[in-house]
């Protein structure tokens, strides 16, 4: 229970827990909708989902500052490609949180003249850009690791002596000719933070894709994606070493 307390004491931990609950409700609704006699349960799940979703807005208030700080940190990244991607991503995140705050003000009745749909679209657009740029950064890092892994395979070819020359050469060749998928899998396995971040961004991107109408996945897919990304978020809060760090 001590671990649970420490976990939930962090706002991010509680928020991810509620997000997981929200998307689990969405997934369960999708699974139970077609079943007869489960209308009451589906109604309850919908109410839970909407109250958790509106309650989570309180967790996001003030996150503009977090995003601005993250932008400042990403400007100092060593590598130029991640620096560009992350800075632009975090700038988009700042605008997303500003739109989110405006929507919160509308929902509590402080800003009655705000056009909700317009601001929702704006928020979704910036969230989409943030996720795309984060994925771009992830792909760059994956490519970097793949190139390193391929170099390691080529290096192995030269290491042993002349006597075993053709055998070693054979080994090196097979390393290089290994299917890229296997190489990709191996390099991701060696870098769990990168794997987790990629999975999280891929799952999250379904949400703005649906909101912007670019792609219409079913409620179940969105729910599953949201649940997976929330679980990944919870893992990075519980184990901070699993968070992808900017070099």
């Amino acid at each position, binding site marked *: 229970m001590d671990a649970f307390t420490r976990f939930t*004491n962090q706002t991010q931990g509680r928020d991810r827990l509620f997000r997981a609950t929200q998307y689990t409700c969405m997934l369960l609704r999708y699974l139970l909708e077609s079943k007869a006699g489960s209308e009451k349960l589906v109604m309850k799940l919908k109410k839970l989902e909407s109250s958790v979703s509106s309650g989570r807005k*309180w967790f996001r208030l003030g996150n503009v500052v977090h995003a601005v700080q993250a932008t400042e940190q990403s400007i100092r990244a060593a590598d130029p490609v991640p620096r560009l991607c992350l800075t632009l991503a975090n700038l988009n995140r700042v605008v997303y949180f500003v739109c989110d705050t405006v929507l919160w003000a509308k929902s509590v*009745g402080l800003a009655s003249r705000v056009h909700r749909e317009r601001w929702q679209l704006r928020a979704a657009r910036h969230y989409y850009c943030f996720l795309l740029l984060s994925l771009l950064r992830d792909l760059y890092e994956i490519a970097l690791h793949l190139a390193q892994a391929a170099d390691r395979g080529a290096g192995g070819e030269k290491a042993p002596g002349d006597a075993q020359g053709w055998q070693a050469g054979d080994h090196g060749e097979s390393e290089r000719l290994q299917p890229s998928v296997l190489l990709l899998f191996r390099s991701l396995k060696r870098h769990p933070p990168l794997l987790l971040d990629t999975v999280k961004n891929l799952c999250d991107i379904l949400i703005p894709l649906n909101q912007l109408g670019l792609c219409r996945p079913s409620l179940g897919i969105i729910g599953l994606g949201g649940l997976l990304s929330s679980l990944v978020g919870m893992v990075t809060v519980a184990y901070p070493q699993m968070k992808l760090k900017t070099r």
Partner: protein
Amino acid sequence: MDAWVRFGAQSQARERLCRAAQYACSLLGHALQRHGASPELQKQIRQLESHLSLGRKLLRLGNSADALESAKRAVHLSDVVLRFCITVSHLNRALYFACDNVLWAGKSGLAPGVDQEKWAQRSFRYYLFSLIMNLSRDAYEIRLLMEQESSACSRRLKSSGGGVPGGNGGPGGLGTPGGGLPQLVLKLRLRVLLLARVLQGHPPLLLDVVRNACDLFIPLDKLGLWRCGPGIVGLCGLISSILSILTLVYPWLRLKP
């Protein structure tokens, strides 16, 4: 900005900010009503207050476990009185949060059969017991500190003044017996001065006393034991929220057992 990030990262901090905002709205609503502001504005403030209240209930969803954990830790304290007061206070707080969770389930439509009024009264009762325990603990700590302070004072007087017996105005003991009312008044004055000195020397204790005293008005009003009105409740709630935000920003201000 870094300070805000670290502050906001604690979920309790965000909940305290929402609490301060909620009671500020309550106070503002009362002030606007007294000065005859437009019903539109009053409605907006009331709506914001109810949103804040519901939002806080969600933010507090895991707090029962937190309170139970604190009660578990308090059981190991050495002082018997402190152990009793703090443990019972945390247990009551855990029950208060549990009732609060039931209220949230009712308000958000998950458990529509929940009797809001009954559970609200229950929750405020547990909150009141918890505050009474907190104030008892504060009173005990103050008494201990006052005894320490008065014995330290009398030791200093004995060592500096060469032990004049029956001396006039020594805080440890007073000279001529049977002075009646003036002597009682003097005794009371000295006690009050000693109390002021003790509280001045221990800011965490002073903060805790003020906070608990302010908080006490809320359940007293809601349970109908002492109807102070929404203005007083709002002001006291705002003051206690600000004080608890201070203890989060400056951890040395938090009263440690």
